[in-house]
């Protein structure tokens, strides 16, 4: 009869968990002495399925890798294929792709507002932000036909041109969201209780962040200026003018501030894109999908999603199907080993809060 710590399962069926995963907490009081994450509840064996699909069929699967933010996945697949094949992308397509990526970032930020506040018990912000997110999804729907899964960015360009007057509608939504940002500021960032909850919680300092390979906002929140869009510019990011916000706090609050600043940057980026959007073709025609083969070779392509760096390793063996597709999700490190480390010593009340601030997203971990 030895003294046992209490086991508390957070997830898979739990209102506080992000997606479908599980964190097994060992508690002493309500302090966590050990945390163990378990993933795999969402394993669909995409990478296996892709070995059986041809290059165009693969494209439809890509968006399903990560549900909250599918477009970067499509984008990196398209770019990986282009890199192996050496296919050129028209300039206008690049602009549209960048715009789609940034719109996806915006909607993902809004979803993150919802998660971060929902886990802290401020239920008004989720209601607002998920509601506002619908405006961006409307734009997607108009552009691509789908709200969540777009299947829009394909190798060689994009699937459709912008509808008429789309730019003005995008700008309108941008104006609206920028206006709403003030509301979120009042509700969330100026709220002393939110600050009290977020400050000093879930600290990942600079040394630890680099050691564990943290990416995205958590890395920037501890003062490392790292952003794939700047470090390794893709699409037209090198032609755009934006900054990479950083903070020094390294806690949940710093991450929130970083994301807030990035949110503003995204709006400005979209405005710049619409300003500079050239005319022209939107795709280079791909061959008959059944006969479409790629030369033997590999590519590793990365992009910056809201949760951080995502990457795709694509290996072609010269046939009409990929030999191997391997996706590196942004949360791959955050949600498994890092989370186990960060949660130790924290309070039960902060688990969901920290998970949201790290941007854990199980579907891209287990694929």
């Amino acid at each position: 009869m030895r003294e046992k710590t209490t086991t508390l399962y957070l997830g898979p069926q739990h209102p506080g968990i992000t997606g479908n995963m599980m964190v097994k907490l060992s508690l002493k009081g309500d302090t966590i002495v050990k945390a163990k994450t378990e993933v795999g509840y969402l394993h669909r064996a995409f990478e296996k399925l892709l070995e059986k699909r041809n290059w165009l069929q693969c494209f439809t699967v890509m968006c399903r890798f990560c549900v909250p933010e599918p477009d970067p996945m499509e984008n990196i697949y398209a770019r990986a294929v282009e890199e192996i094949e050496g296919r050129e992308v028209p300039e206008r397509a690049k602009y549209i792709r960048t715009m789609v990526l940034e719109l996806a970032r915006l909607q993902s930020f809004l979803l993150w507002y919802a998660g971060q506040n929902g886990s802290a018990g401020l239920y008004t912000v989720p209601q607002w932000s998920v509601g506002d997110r619908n405006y961006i999804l409307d734009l997607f729907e108009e552009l691509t036909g789908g709200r969540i899964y777009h299947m829009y960015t394909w190798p060689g360009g994009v699937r459709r041109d912008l509808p008429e007057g789309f730019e003005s509608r995008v700008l309108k939504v941008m104006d609206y969201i920028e206006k709403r940002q003030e509301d979120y500021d009042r509700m969330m960032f100026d709220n002393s209780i939110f600050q009290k909850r977020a400050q000093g919680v879930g600290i990942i300092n600079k040394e630890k962040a680099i050691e564990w390979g943290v990416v995205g906002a958590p890395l920037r929140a501890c003062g490392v200026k790292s952003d794939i869009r700047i470090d390794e510019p893709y699409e037209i990011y090198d032609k755009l003018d934006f900054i990479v916000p950083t903070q020094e706090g390294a806690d949940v609050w710093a991450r929130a501030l970083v994301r807030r600043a990035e949110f503003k940057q995204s709006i400005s980026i979209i405005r710049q894109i619409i300003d500079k959007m050239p005319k022209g073709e939107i795709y280079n025609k791909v061959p008959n999908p059944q006969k479409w083969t790629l030369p033997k070779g590999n590519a590793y392509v990365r992009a910056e999603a809201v949760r951080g760096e995502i990457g795709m390793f694509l290996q072609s063996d010269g046939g009409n199907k990929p030999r191997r597709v391997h996706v590196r999700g942004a949360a791959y490190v955050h949600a498994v080993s890092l989370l186990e480390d960060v949660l130790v010593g924290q309070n039960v009340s902060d688990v969901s809060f920290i998970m949201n601030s790290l941007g854990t997203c199980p579907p891209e971990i287990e694929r």
Partner: protein
Amino acid sequence: MNSLVIMLLIYFAGAILVYAANKFSAVLRDVIVVLAGLLPVALFFSIPAFEAFQFRIAGFDLFWDLGSLAYIFEALVVVVGAASLVYAISYMKGKKNLGYFYMNFFLSLGSMTGILMSQDLISFFIFWEIMTWSSYFIVVFNGYKTNKIGLTYIFFSALGAYAMLTAIVMINTQTGSTMWNDFFIAFAGMSSHYQLLISILFIFGFGVKAAMMPLHIWAADAYSHSPMAYTATFSGVLSKMGVYGLALVMIKLALVSNHFVFSQVIAWLGAVTAALATIYALIQKDIRKLLAYSSVAQLGYIITGIAVGTAMSFMAGIYLAVLHGLFKAALFMVAGAVEKQAGTTDMHKLRALIRKMPLTFITAMVAIIALAGIPPLGGFVGKWMLYESLIGSNHYFLVIVIFFSSTAAFLYAYRFLYGIFLGQEEEEFAHVKEAPLMMLIPMLFFTVLLIVTGTFPGIILGPVANAMNHGMGFRGVQWEMSVLTNVYGDSIHLSVISTIVVVVFIVFALFLILKGRKGTRYVTTKDIANSGEPVRPEDNYHFALDFYKPFERAMAPLYRFKMSEIYGNISDGLVSFFQFTRRLYSGNGQTYVYYVLLFIVILLVFSNQLINR
């Protein structure tokens, strides 16, 4: 023959007989234990009035008579004593040296009776010493591990006794008499220095037994390490001897009315005792320790009630003292039953005995409800009177402190019930059975008693009021069977409250039981909503470690006292009272001496200027 003497004789004869009988037969011993335990009860309640008994021995006049206040405590002694003895038969079964144990048990019961009936200081002191030593022998009954605890206990008791002896000698030199009454009368005429010194010495002596704030160090360990059958009496009754003495000193010497600040200090000490002991109680992991700290806290209320000294607060104090005797005896019996049946009293290990020991649970629940002061049980009556009297006598900040500790008491009350009886069921305790009948009877007896006294507190309040009107110097103290009235003239009818509570409870309980009876099913605690995960055998779903961690974090400054006390040096102790108390656990006798001296100095400093107002 005088019935008082008979009672005394029964106890002392029981002590000898049981020791002798133990040599021959266990059955005979048990029979004697039960007889000698129950006879005084019959005797006590069958005799309407006790005559005084006076004799002269070795040049001292000894005068025995049961005062009206002592009557209440004597009732507690015989009832709780008898119940504990009956309980002990089952509880102590299979232990060694039982004759020795029972002998000391009877000796302490007899000595308590003696204390209560002593009207002279000599026999009072002698009985006091017998009580101290007999209880000490039981404290160290459980083997050498308890030696240090016993040492602390006997050290404090001895200091208290010497203080008392000094006071008695001083009284004798001043008045030339050894009678309490002569002392009470002569006290008013003494010089204020003597008044002060004698009061302090007496309060010191009684405060040790009543586990008053700075003198409570021994209590938690001693209560928790003596056999539970005795602790029921030890914490329930023996500590009340200190309360009895304090009541005599505070009220009879008119300390309250004459030395306002002095009584304030004691009242605040009581309140601080209550608050600190409560917050220490709720971080304990051993149920005996929890109950021990809880006893200290409850004694804090009682001391406050007595020290404030208005009619109502005094009544509340004595009422709480009696009730504490009842429910704490019941709770220690529960702890004993759990220890006996489950083999441990560690709340980190115990779990979910409710289905195994339902009757024990009911006892525990009723006693805990009484302890927490939740209507309709008796604790509420005492708490209510205490609050009303404190507010009525303008002790509004005292009432906040008391209320804080009483609210925090819910925490350890719940901890106690949860820690033993609730939570996740475990294979380890599958074999546990309900406590044996002989243990259940006293427990259920207290359960019934607590329920009755909750609705009809007059059973206790009557004698208390009687004592206050006759002998304690209060005038016109009113009481009613089940109506409480405060100083503002507002009253509450306890019978109405009890009726409403019971009726509403029964209505909804029936509703819950009967509605959809077919679809209502019991499932084991292994079938919990575990976030969708199947319950795995290797995991532990019982929440026990650091139960009140959030509370500890919120109250970190208060707990920090304790932490700094461990590492603090002696100079810190001089600065802070609380920091200093921690040193006492060091087991270093010298520290204790410093400490006791310091306490006296502080009391002197506090009271000297004020007493001469």
